[in-house]
């Protein structure tokens, strides 16, 4: 159970995240939606402490995450893996080494500095890659892969951390619809089969509706919606997305709660075709 209590990140002029309180039970798949600049990324970065909060508290299973420093902080990061919009792999290293980087939190520093990993770890890495259908490319340099392939390698790296929580920051924003579907399905599988909590930032409402148990809508740093996909009304969605409403595909939303995901031409075709 991840408990977020009044968490804030204020810069001098902007309130990136403003007084956010949430409880995320273990094993949930949570989609965070909102327009660009709503604070979705900052919220995820506050959770794994890539950014430090200016106020509020964050705890996981009773451990105060905001107070962690040094080794304990790195252990925490290792327990909540993150994947990024731009994949953030080491381009010049091969795929398998990139995946093994997920073990940095589990290994003594010196052995990782010479890139020495055990046979068991290599086996684990190949299994993770195999799960994502990327084991054939294990010895290729990361930079030779397509965007969708790189994101799957990034997910394999995250799996190597044996995380409790997987944070995904706009994981499909740079991908074509087909690859986006594969990545979202991989995240869903990991959530269901491994019981890992997944928190995923998404721009599109229909993707969130399709894959997530719970949707959190953010606007101007605050949580403005927290519930199931079917409880989201058009007026609420408009509040979340503002000017970007049409872009996010909520124009057809009725003003009463909807019970099924809204079929949206581009994304729906991609899902059906996969």
């Amino acid at each position: 159970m991840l408990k977020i209590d009044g968490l804030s990140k204020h810069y001098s002029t902007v309130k990136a995240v403003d007084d956010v309180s949430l409880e995320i039970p273990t094993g949930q798949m949570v989609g965070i939606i909102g327009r660009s600049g709503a604070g979705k990324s900052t919220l995820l970065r506050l959770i794994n402490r890539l950014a430090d909060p200016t106020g509020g508290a964050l705890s996981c299973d009773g451990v105060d995450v905001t107070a962690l420093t040094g080794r304990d902080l790195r252990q925490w990061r290792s327990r909540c893996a993150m994947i990024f919009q731009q994949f953030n792999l080491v381009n010049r290293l091969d795929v398998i080494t990139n995946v093994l980087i997920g073990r940095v939190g589990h290994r003594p520093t010196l052995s990782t500095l010479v890139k020495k990993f055990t046979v068991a770890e290599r086996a684990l890495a190949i299994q993770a890659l195999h799960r994502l259908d990327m084991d054939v490319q294990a010895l290729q340099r990361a930079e030779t892969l397509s965007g969708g392939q790189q994101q799957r390698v990034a997910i394999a790296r995250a799996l190597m951390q044996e995380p409790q929580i997987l944070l995904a920051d706009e994981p499909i924003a740079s991908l074509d619809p087909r690859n986006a579907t594969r990545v979202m399905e991989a995240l869903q599988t990991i959530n269901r089969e491994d019981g890992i909590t997944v928190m995923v930032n998404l721009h599109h409402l229909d993707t969130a509706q399709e894959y997530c148990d719970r949707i959190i809508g953010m606007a101007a740093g605050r949580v403005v919606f927290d519930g199931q996909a079917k409880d989201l009304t058009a007026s609420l969605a408009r509040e979340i997305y503002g000017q970007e409403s049409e872009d996010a595909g909520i124009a057809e939303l009725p003003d009463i709660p909807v019970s099924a995901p809204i079929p949206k031409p581009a994304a729906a075709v991609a899902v059906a075709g996969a």
Partner: protein
Amino acid sequence: MSGIVVSAPPISSGDAVADFERNRLALIRARRSKEILFAFLFAAMFVFSVIVGEVNIATLVEGVPGFFNYISDTIPPIRADSVVADVREWYWAFPKWLMLLFDTVVIAFLGTFIGTVGALVFCFAGSRNLVSSGWVYFIARRLTEIARAVPELVYAMIFVFAFGLGPLPGVLAIAVHSAGALGKLFAEVNENVDMGTVEGVRASGGNWFQIIRLAVIPQVLPNYLSYALLRFEINVRSAAVIGFVGAGGVGQELMFVIRQFVYTDVSALVLMIIVTVSLIDMSCEKLRHRFIPEQQTA
């Protein structure tokens, strides 16, 4: 259907073009006045330097014959009927000079190597994007500045005074200066790395050393190698010169023959140095181009 239909809004397009042309003209004008200012400043500095440097065309012209006389005096007569014997006499101490030249290259190599290691120690602490502590950055940057601000020749004199004549002070002098010069270049390379990669390793729970090793070094290594090789080229020349103050190698011998007015030995040695430096330059350049990444990814 043929051709491309440009669907421009009918009313405002004329304004847009006029606006653009007006802005463009304003930009060009602003740029031109800056260019004129810089040209004027450059001219002023040039004239000032000529006056201070006592550059005088007349002196220059008078001196040219002397310059060529010195060069021609140092070249021995080589007759067509005894080329081999003449060259052999010119290069009478060839094996010894070759050994000294080898010493010089070794001094340069060792100095570059130690300097590169020193630069590696300081460059990460001297990169804005890799250290959070302001004073660690400040100290690392100032240390590399001090190391490179003093010329090798001055370091060589100090080290000769401390350790006596021979190659050791030469190696140390080159090492210190190279550590400073490369430290700055390496740090600048580090500051251009893709921080997304750094964040990827940090988010996996990596500590500072793991971030450097796994996220930074793979990105920067080709540039490091390229810069270190360039430094080696420069250091071979420096190593030849610092011998003048007694720091070993061929320079020490060159200084000796210049002082003794053994003209033909001077030309023999200088020619050997030029050939060696050129050979090393050429091979280093070939090698360097292999390390420069084919495409710099952002």
